Every structure is written in C-alpha cells, then in structure tokens.
C-alpha cells in the first residue's frame, strides 16, 4: 500500500476539483494506471438487469479496445461486470472503494479486489481500519468522478449512488454519458434532469464522440509540455 494526494496523482487541481477532493488517497497496485491512458468510469446498479450487465460488458470491451482504463466502484452488478470484463479482455481497471483497502464490500468481491490490487489498481480515501459506513459510498462516488475523465451511467434506479456520481461529474466539468436504453425508460426522471445540465446520451452512434472527448495521455510530449 502507498499513499498520495490527489494533486500528486492528477497534477494541479482547480478550485472546483479541490472542493470535494480527499486530502489523501490509499492505493495498492499500479500507480501508472493514473498516468497512461484516459480513464472512464462505468457505473450503475448493484441489482442490475441482464440487459444492463450486457451493456456494461459491451461498453467495457469497446473502451479496452481503445486503450481506455476502466474505472468502477467494486460494487455488485454493473461495477463487477465492468471490472471483470476489463480484466478478461486484457485491459486495465481501477477500483475506487467505499471501504478502506483492508475491507471488502460486498464480501463476495474479496477475490476480485485482491486481483485488482495485485495486477491493476485499487484506491480508497478511507484510512485502513475505518468502519464500513453507508454514507462513505456516495463520498467515494465523488472521488471516482474526480479520478475519471468521463463517467458512463449504465443503469440506475432513482436513488442510486451512480446518479450522485453523475452530478459530481457535471460539477467537475467532466463528460457524463447515460446509456440510451435508460434515457428511453419513461419510468425514470433522473436521466432528463442530468441531460438538462449537459449529460450526453450514449449509443452506438455517440460512442466515438465519447472517445474523442477523452484527453490524450500516454505520449509524454503531448501531455507534459505543450509548446506555445
């Protein structure tokens, strides 16, 4: 395990980013995953539908094919589908935990957490030994939005933590996409609320738009010193 501040990991932060940034992060695994490749958070319901899980897998495969690091929250459902698909496809993944590194929630994901920590990267803002508290999970969602260049909500019920991550992504000025199938679900009011503030609809037609919006990383000459 090692510790770092968000500024250590992401470079200088603007005032909007600093507002909810945790003072310190506890990490295990490959720090380089925060330095190479764009990062997209794939998030959604713990009790996901089969179609939602299939969409999460399809999106993750596309992201991995384009060298994008897949970020999620190690929760059941959509998060687990995103992590496991990224690993299975040879991609890279980051788990941003709502627990400290020495705890796992849900317990069923202990093996997945261990594998991500050994071969990819796990991140938590909670000091080892901290108790697991429900209120820590939406706090974690803010941090996940900060660490990600874009967030995609695959599927979410009205009270889902994924929606709070969506609002935080918009506040940070990050790209926020919502799966088209969710937007078309007339029983949900939250997609229209987020779209009114700038969220985009993700479909086969707009996936390239999402990929084009991501920052160019991995080639130091592009990122470090832009000579003008």
């Amino acid at each position, binding site marked *: 395990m090692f510790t770092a501040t968000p500024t250590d990991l992401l*470079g*200088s*932060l*603007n*005032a*909007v*980013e600093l*507002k909810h940034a945790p003072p310190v992060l506890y990490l295990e695994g490959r720090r380089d995953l925060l330095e190479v490749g764009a990062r997209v958070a794939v998030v959604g319901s713990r009790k996901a539908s089969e179609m939602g899980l299939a969409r999460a897998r399809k999106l993750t495969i596309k992201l991995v094919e384009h060298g994008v690091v897949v970020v999620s929250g190690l929760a059941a459902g959509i998060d687990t589908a995103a992590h496991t698909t990224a690993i299975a496809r040879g991609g890279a993944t980051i788990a941003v935990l709502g627990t400290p590194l020495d705890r796992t929630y849900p317990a069923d994901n202990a093996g997945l957490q261990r594998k991500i920590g050994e071969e990819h990267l796990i991140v938590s803002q909670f000091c080892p030994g901290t108790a697991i508290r429900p209120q820590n999970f939406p706090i974690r969602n803010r941090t996940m939005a900060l660490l990600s260049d874009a967030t995609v909500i695959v599927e979410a019920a009205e009270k889902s933590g994924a929606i709070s991550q969506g*609002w935080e992504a*918009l*506040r*940070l*000025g*990050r790209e926020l996409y919502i799966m088209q199938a969710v937007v078309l679900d007339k029983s949900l009011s939250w997609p229209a609320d987020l*779209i*009114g*503030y*700038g969220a*985009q609809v993700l479909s086969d037609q707009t996936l390239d*738009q999402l990929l084009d*919006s991501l*920052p*160019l990383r991995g080639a130091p*000459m*592009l*990122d470090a010193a*832009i*000579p*003008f």
Partner: protein
Amino acid sequence: MPQFPSELPYWALLRYAVRGQGDVSRKSNAACKKIKRGDSGYIARVAERVRENIAMGGVLSPCFAGRPFLVPAPRSAPLVKGGLWPAAEICRALVSAGIGAEVLPCLERWKRVTKAATAPAQERPTPELHYETVRVGGRVLASHPDALVLVDDVVTRGATLVGLIPHLEEAFPGVDIRCFAVCRTVSEGDIAEILDPVEGRIHGGPERLRRAP
C-alpha cells in the same frame, strides 16, 4: 428577436486543428481539452501569453484596451451549482495577469443547447437559439463599464458570440463590446503552430455564419 451583428470582429490566441493528425495538430487537441477541463496551470499560461502579446503591442492589444470588464460566455448547458465554468476560469486568469478590470459573470444559460463541437454542421445552435437560451443576471454594477470583452474558450463558427452580443448591448447600451476566444478551430487539415494570435471577423447571414480566419 433582436438584430444580430452582420459582421463581428473577434480576437483569438491559439489555433485548434479539429481533425488534424499531425504532431502539432494533436498537441492543439490536447491544449483545447486542457482549457475546457479548467486546467488552472495551463489557463494561467494562456493568460501569460495574452499579457505578453499586449505588452509588445501585438494583435490582441485593441481587444483588451481600456481595462474592460470580462464577461464569460455561458457553457452549452445550465451550470450545476458551484460547477466548472471554463470561460470564467479564463477571465479570472486574465485579470490575475493584469488584463481587464474585473470578471463580470452576467450571462446565464437557462436551457441547454447542443454542443457545437459535437453536432453535425446543420444541427449546431444558431445565434437565435443562443440568444433565447441565455439571460442576463447577476449583480448590479456600481459603475458603468467603458468596455466589455465577451470571453469564450473556443470559437467554431461564432454563433455563440453573435447570439450573445445583443444581450450585452441591451444590458449595457452604448458600451464598447469586443469578443475574445482562447482557441479558434481549424476544421480541415493540419497546423504548423498552435500559438497564432489573430483579429478576425465573423460574418453573419440569413443562411450561415462564416468566420475568417
């Protein structure tokens, strides 16, 4: 609907090659994304380049003459409370660099429009739509400014600038109003340099807008 300007001068600092794949073009893409993301260090460098240009009597001097108030152009969607507003970040950095009197965030988007950067040409918002979806708000000024500069991060065709000018003319009658964008898009081909301060023109028309350069 108000009268929109048929020809609008504007100033810009950088070029951004939208589709270019050359080395410099890709760097311009990265630069534009840093600005849109509110990268404070990078935006401070932008302000410093503007200051240098003005100090040597460069092309940007007339845009910022007379210590104007800087008005950030609204984003394409209403702002989440406390959310990032890149144009306002640019304005603050310019004032910190000694350019302009103060930031005047008096324009507010109340209804979302399509982003020009991601929309097909025929679906990009018109000046009329920009005008209809923005309102004037914010604090009342103690003193009337002599000049305003409407500041945006990127100018594509110029529809945002053309659409917002009538709001400022109505709110500040008789005040000299100018337009500045950090980046101007180059829609085709590659570029050889990113830094290229220019004064240009946006030509309005019943059918389409045209920006030169």
